């Protein structure tokens, strides 16, 4: 049974809700190895073909999946321009996926603007589907590199107090990371956002069912106190386009800004994370401090995605 939970061979990576702790830890182990001895992975996917179907813009996720596949010797079929896939001409996702499968690919990495698109794709094709972002729903592989960052920086995830700040409602990285962290012991979560941008009800339901301790911090005046208690602060961009009232955005954006003044309340060991890109919510002044984990976090995209390819297609 344990082996089944650990094995990702041939598996879809659709949602972090499907993860198990042994599986996540296995990804961490292989990512450690990919960092330590990347040469061991070169050529390990030779003869394999990976399709990258990106129907939404992407920089970090696309490039790390691409570079990881190339480093491991896989053929890459890049379908980044929606024109190439005819999706913009009105072709269904179903037809596009069937066409890609017909090219004899071994795996499809997909980013799509619709929530649930990855689950649907996994049902449509026989080959493994890796969700590289499904609208505002989830970004499970980002959650693996986020959790991996925490584990690398702190040695363990168990027992940590983690704050999520910014747009928690429309962020796809937040639900995935919440689901992944909920696999660890005694993790406490604080969701710092105005009511309109708070975590979605299904995320709260998941935490209640898992018995994870969490609270919602909706008053700006409470933010410094909460930040002072955290081990990790995960910041996401406030998405201007989501605000019904633009003046509300202008009012809030300053209050949800992580700068040296806010961090003067923090523990010396607090790590600040951000899935990037950032806009105004994270002051570049923070970059030079030990709190800034975000560039290191981004760099783990490569070993974590190599680990995923290895476990799904190789191993």
């Amino acid at each position, binding site marked *: 049974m344990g082996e089944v939970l650990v094995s990702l061979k041939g598996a879809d990576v659709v*949602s972090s*809700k499907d993860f198990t702790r042994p599986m996540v830890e296995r990804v961490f182990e292989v990512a450690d190895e990919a960092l330590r001895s990347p040469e061991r992975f070169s050529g390990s996917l030779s003869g394999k073909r990976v399709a990258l179907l990106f129907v939404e813009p992407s920089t970090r996720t696309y490039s790390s999946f691409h570079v990881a596949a190339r480093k491991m010797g896989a053929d890459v079929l890049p379908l980044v321009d929606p024109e190439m896939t005819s999706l913009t001409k*009105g*072709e*269904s*996702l*179903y037809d596009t996926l069937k066409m890609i499968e017909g090219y004899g690919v071994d795996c499809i990495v997909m980013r*799509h*603007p*619709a*929530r*649930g*698109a990855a*689950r*649907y794709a996994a049902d449509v094709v026989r080959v493994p589907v890796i969700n590289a972002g*499904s*609208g*505002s*729903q*989830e970004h499970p592989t980002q959650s693996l590199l986020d959790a991996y960052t925490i584990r690398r920086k702190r040695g363990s995830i168990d027992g940590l107090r983690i704050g999520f700040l910014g747009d928690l409602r429309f962020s796809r990285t937040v*639900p995935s990371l919440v689901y992944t962290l909920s696999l660890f012991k005694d993790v406490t979560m604080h969701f710092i956002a105005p009511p309109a941008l708070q975590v*979605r*009800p*299904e995320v709260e*339901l998941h935490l209640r*069912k898992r018995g994870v301790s969490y609270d919602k911090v909706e008053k700006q005046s409470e933010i410094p106190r909460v930040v002072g208690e955290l081990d990790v602060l995960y910041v996401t961009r406030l998405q201007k386009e989501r605000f019904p009232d633009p003046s509300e955005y202008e009012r809030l954006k300053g209050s949800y800004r992580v700068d040296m003044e806010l961090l003067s309340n923090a523990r010396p060991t607090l790590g600040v994370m951000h899935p990037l890109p950032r806009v105004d919510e994270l002051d570049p002044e923070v970059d030079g401090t030990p709190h800034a984990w975000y560039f290191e976090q981004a760099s783990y995209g490569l070993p974590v995605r190599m680990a995923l390819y290895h476990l799904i297609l190789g191993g």
Partner: protein
Amino acid sequence: MEEGLLVRKIDWGTVIDHIPAWRADRVLRLIDAEQLAKDPEVSVIVLKNVPSRKYGRKDVIKLYHHHMSRTDAALVKLIYPTVTVNYIRDWKVEKYQPELPDVIEGRVRCPEVTCISNSKRDPVVRRFRVLKEDGYIQCYYCDAIVEFSSIPDLAVA
């Protein structure tokens, strides 16, 4: 005053009984209206706020010349657990106890407009998992949750 005094018994059809008072319209939304309309012989009799020995007041729906699907019966029972469904054939009454479904397919639309199951291009079968202990259904694709009581608002034919 029993509802029998208001409307006569039917010899063929479905009686959806013990609906909470004033909720009959919401139950009707859950019944596949297209199927009903196909048959010119069908009549729908709705009784609202009639006395009930068990519950004080209740609504009752009689579908004359129509047997509602067992799937729809299960959906109604999920939202209104007090409901009983009787199928009538030649005056004979079959008391049907619908089993609560684990999955609802086709009949409920996801409230998330950006969910793939609302795509007009793709032939996605709408599907929800039933979280019985929590009182929600959850979209199989996008994870959106819907309280049982809100299901009639999202029912599709």
